[in-house]
């Protein structure tokens, strides 16, 4: 008898277990979604640590970083969000710790021009640094 029940209703215990407490849906965005700290999300570049060495640019597989150099003191580091694959190679390559990928996972935007961000700008002798927003 139990074998007969087994072949016909094998899933019943698991069904009962799921019905009383096995729900896995997270009501995102109406409920918070917790991510581990090491999640690789948004790319954050700290301008004060950037030396303009270009290691990140050389190692980016998607060509999402560009270093525009006018002189030894004057350069701009541009990050193209729409090309970025969030692989994290720039974070690993940077010797100065200027790039980190934080665990923010909604970098989407409604304005196209915010997809290209001048992350670091070293200009005149007063060392103008453009911050992140």
């Amino acid at each position, binding site marked *: 008898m139990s074998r007969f029940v087994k072949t016909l209703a094998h899933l019943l215990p698991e069904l009962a277990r799921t019905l009383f407490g096995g729900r896995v849906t997270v009501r995102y965005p109406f409920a918070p979604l917790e991510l581990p700290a090491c999640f690789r999300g948004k790319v954050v570049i700290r301008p004060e640590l950037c030396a303009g060495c270009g290691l990140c640019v050389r190692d980016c597989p998607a060509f999402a970083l560009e270093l525009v150099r006018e002189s030894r003191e004057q350069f701009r580091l541009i990050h193209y969000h729409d090309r970025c694959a969030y692989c994290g*190679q720039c974070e690993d390559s940077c010797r100065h710790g200027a790039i980190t990928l934080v665990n923010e996972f909604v970098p989407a935007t409604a304005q196209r021009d915010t997809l290209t961000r001048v992350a670091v700008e070293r200009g005149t002798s007063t060392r103008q640094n453009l911050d992140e927003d």
Partner: protein
Amino acid sequence: MTRVTIPIGPQHPALKEPLSFLLTVEGERVMESALRIGYVHRGLEHIFQNRSYVQNVHVVERICGICSHIHTTAYCQGVEALLELEVPPRALYLRTLLCELERIHSHLLWLGVLAEHIGFTTIFMYAWRDREIVLDIMEELSGGRVAHAVNVIGGVRIDLDQEHIHSILARLDELERQVETFLGVIQHERTLQARTRGVGHLSAEQVRRYCVVGPVARASGVDVDMRRDAPYAAYAWLDFQVITAEEGDVWARTMVRVLESIESLHICRQLLNELPVGSLTVRASRRVPPGEAVSRCEAPRGELVYYIRSDGSDRPARVKVRTPTLTTLITLPDQLRGVNTADVPTVLSGVDLCIACADR
């Protein structure tokens, strides 16, 4: 009886990725089929030649989403062979840990997809719910659920402490209980057996003729597994069994994959309990001396082969990828001959196609 041509794909609910089958059907039987691939071809082997070795680690990862880590493992192993690097044991253990976790997640994904295609939506929901346990573990280890970027040339980028190891072990125990439930369902549930037994039969002789690899080959009795036959990473130091079955149909493949998941859980436990101390990487130079290397790994779908040729610069001269799905794709016209139309999705799911891998 008239013959009707039914198109399966490129867009079809039975396919995860675009693939084109033109089935010639008479009544309810499939007479012939014509296969067309290449819809996801991205020219990746050409892209590899225009990127440096370091950049390629990430491009290689994006050949496929389900088996991303094994591609980077095979690639990094090949480059490390060309550089004649000795990767530290701790890094090898961590690499293997992620390989096995990926195998479990891939098999659970596949189980859900097969269940969905035979109308067993409940198993689909349960398998993907339990897969979240593995994906959460991988996310905590590496920072990504699908693209982990764990491997670097010369070692790995991640590390584990004791507390983390205990938490992972507890979750693996929970996962094992769930996978045992699935095993029970596959062994006893009448409707599932009615849909998968005797469907998509491949004999051992056909397997050898088409050079099929992976769980499809093992389910027909052909005992091939790169982890045991040509050990790489940490497999030489591990104790595990290779699962085979004799029937050669979709049911046998299901059994092989679920039992392999349980075996992978045992392997993960060994890796976590015996993790050696040491460094995580060795220094790798950017320029690779000229040479050739062939790197073989056991992906969740079978043997994955990478051929890398270097010419002394910091870019590879040639990277050739042979994925396991290519071998199983060729058997599909044979498997589909004489099959009931209702069994076509079952057959297609049974071989666990990863078209992104096959098309590159």
